[in-house]
């Protein structure tokens, strides 16, 4: 017999789980399916899980700032649920945004003012006092080590930074998704794993449900695509949906590196999350007193778009192709080492390689679709981890309203951020938007 639910969520990552959780709280009988073996084991697990407020748009800043309120009181968000794996921890380091030519920091600052984000302006002396290991010379423009100018001696100093005392990272992104799954289950949500979706069924442009690889049909009047790097494949399964979206998503390969902190510097205890557009990197502390170094997608770096199924299968059939490349290892670690010259760079690359579900303008799509009952929370573009609980609440409200007849395409929903009270236009995240040229077109969003 075909099982029936009120809503099916495809993807038990850090955004899928909160959607299930919020829908369950509204009384929806939800089922979340994931092709992997547990919640958060896909691209969520590889997320740097950074929680910071700076975005290139006001709504981006507002949403991220709202997100803090959830991470800061994680237990309360989870309604004190027990998780046998323990709870993920929010590590508040504070967040430094270096004032550089690599960031439109003036725009960020005006967005902070508009939203009411607490911040301080630090000059170079203040930065040196707070982080003695940073060399505050300007290294702009961002280059690759193959460029003969890479090692040029810098001559100018940077101006300073904008410091947000609120900011940091979650200790374990996969665990955070797992926590939300347990919270959702406590509200009646169901989850099944090792369950790969092969078809999204519909009739007369109304979604009917999904079919799993083992042939199981599951029916629901609502299906939500939260499939991360596989999002475009799921959209392609839903008749007409992929073609109708003006903004598309695709999978981008990305590498994150781990390097030991300079000797004598307790980065784990004393360090700050730092966004450093001057060297095209962001970095934060990682267990083992390591620098975790991500790329801010500078123009000189090649972008490698991949088929997620091929990537996760590895070039062979039995392993995950998560190997770091020497070229990118050198690029990211050397760039970070221009700022932190005493950082050790091991001979063997260490870190994480995974995929972004990247949209055309690096801003996510939180929207309905042309197919009745089919929704999407996709295109997180490496920058939505921090927004996951907010996205869950916003998507649940959008789904509920639309299922009750609201025409979101005609009059976009205005969603009130519950903690900071500000309204954001959900139409900002529309699948039908034109490319947003205010975006940074990078992980910065």
């Amino acid at each position, binding site marked *: 017999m075909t099982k029936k639910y009120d809503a099916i969520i495809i993807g038990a990552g850090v955004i899928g789980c909160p959607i299930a959780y919020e829908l369950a709280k509204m009384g929806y009988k939800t089922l979340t399916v994931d092709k992997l073996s547990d919640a958060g084991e896909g691209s969520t697990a590889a997320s740097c899980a950074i929680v910071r407020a700076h975005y290139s748009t006001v709504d981006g800043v507002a949403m991220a700032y709202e997100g803090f309120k959830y991470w800061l009181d994680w237990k309360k968000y989870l309604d004190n649920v027990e998780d046998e794996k323990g709870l993920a921890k929010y590590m508040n380091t504070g967040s430094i945004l270096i004032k550089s030519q690599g960031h439109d920091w003036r725009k960020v600052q005006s967005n902070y003012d508009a939203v009411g984000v607490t911040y301080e302006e630090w000059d170079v002396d203040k930065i040196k006092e707070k982080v003695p290991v940073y060399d505050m010379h300007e290294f702009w423009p961002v280059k690759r080590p193959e460029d003969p100018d890479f090692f040029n001696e810098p001559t100018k100093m940077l101006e300073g930074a904008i410091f947000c005392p609120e900011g940091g990272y979650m200790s374990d992104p996969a665990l955070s998704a797992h926590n939300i799954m347990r919270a959702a289950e406590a509200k009646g949500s169901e989850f099944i794993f090792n369950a790969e979706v092969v078809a999204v069924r519909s009739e007369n442009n109304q979604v009917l449900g999904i079919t799993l690889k083992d042939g199981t049909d599951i029916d629901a009047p609502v299906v939500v695509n939260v499939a991360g790097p596989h999002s475009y494949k799921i959209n392609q399964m839903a008749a007409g949906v992929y073609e109708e979206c003006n903004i598309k998503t695709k999978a981008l390969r990305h590498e994150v590196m781990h390097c030991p902190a300079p000797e004598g510097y307790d980065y784990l205890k004393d360090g700050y999350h730092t966004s450093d557009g001057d060297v095209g990197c962001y970095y934060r502390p990682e267990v083992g007193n390591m620098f975790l170094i991500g790329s801010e997608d500078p123009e000189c770096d090649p972008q490698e778009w991949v088929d997620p199924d091929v990537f996760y299968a590895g070039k*062979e059939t039995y392993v995950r192709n998560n190997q770091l490349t020497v070229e990118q290892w050198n690029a990211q670690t050397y760039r970070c080492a221009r700022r932190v010259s005493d950082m*050790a760079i091991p001979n*063997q690359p260490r870190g994480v390689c995974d995929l972004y579900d990247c949209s055309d303008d690096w801003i996510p799509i939180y929207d309905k679709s042309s197919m009745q009952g089919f929704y999407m929370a996709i295109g997180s573009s490496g920058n939505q981890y921090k927004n996951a609980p907010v996205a869950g609440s916003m998507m649940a409200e959008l789904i509920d309203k639309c299922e009750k007849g609201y025409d979101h395409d005609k009059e976009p929903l205005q969603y009130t951020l519950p903690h900071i009270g500000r309204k954001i236009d959900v139409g900002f995240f529309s699948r039908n938007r034109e490319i947003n040229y205010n975006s940074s077109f990078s992980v910065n969003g």
Partner: protein
Amino acid sequence: MNIYVCVKHVPDTAATIRVGADYRIDEDITFIMNPYDENAVEEAVRLKKRMAGAEVIAVTLGKAAAEATLRSALAMGADRAILVRSDKHHDCITTAGALCAAIRQDGNPDLIFTGRESIDAEGFQTMYRMGVNLGIPVASNVIAFDMDGQRVSVISEMEAGEHACLEMTTPCIIGAGKGLNQPSYPKLPDILQARKKTITVIDEEQSGTHSSASRVETVILEIASEERQPEALEGSAEEIADAIVGILRNEAKVLMNS
């Protein structure tokens, strides 16, 4: 004082190893310096800092790409390097011969450091064959090293829990084990400096290597598939701890019976 360090350019331990139809490893993967050789370079550089006038020369046999591993050795503090360039695959006989020929051609070694094994071939023979080739003693899996004049004292780890204290005179070969030191990784200024250091490239044919009468050839190379059979230990923390100690002692045999 001439301190040579023999290093090898090997596939990254994190790499997905694929074997082609020719029974060779597909080399379109990340390569690194053989991890045991990092301990060898580290010890050589530490010794050099104590010995006025000492020079550390990194030597490898390999393809042009092996230069990356020599640059790593230079960034860790070696003074210069020699690449014996060859596109062929070598057994440990010809490898030892080529390395010795390059060292002989370059100077008189006082010490030769190398890793106790290479993580790709795991032949465990090259350093001994070099010892025979040069007529000098070899100590492998060295976890402590000291030098006083021409006397070298080492502690060599044998079977689990067994150590041998050895004394040798120079020149000799030291096969570095993991416990010898904690390699200090280069910083960006070291890497920059290494770019300016000299790597002498010699073709294998010019290195004066004598071909051996017999040789080893890999006929078939296959990926070994490992079936993991995890076993869950149950009980109180004490019971689980006792069970783990039992496994380490009786099955893994890494703990001695007390």
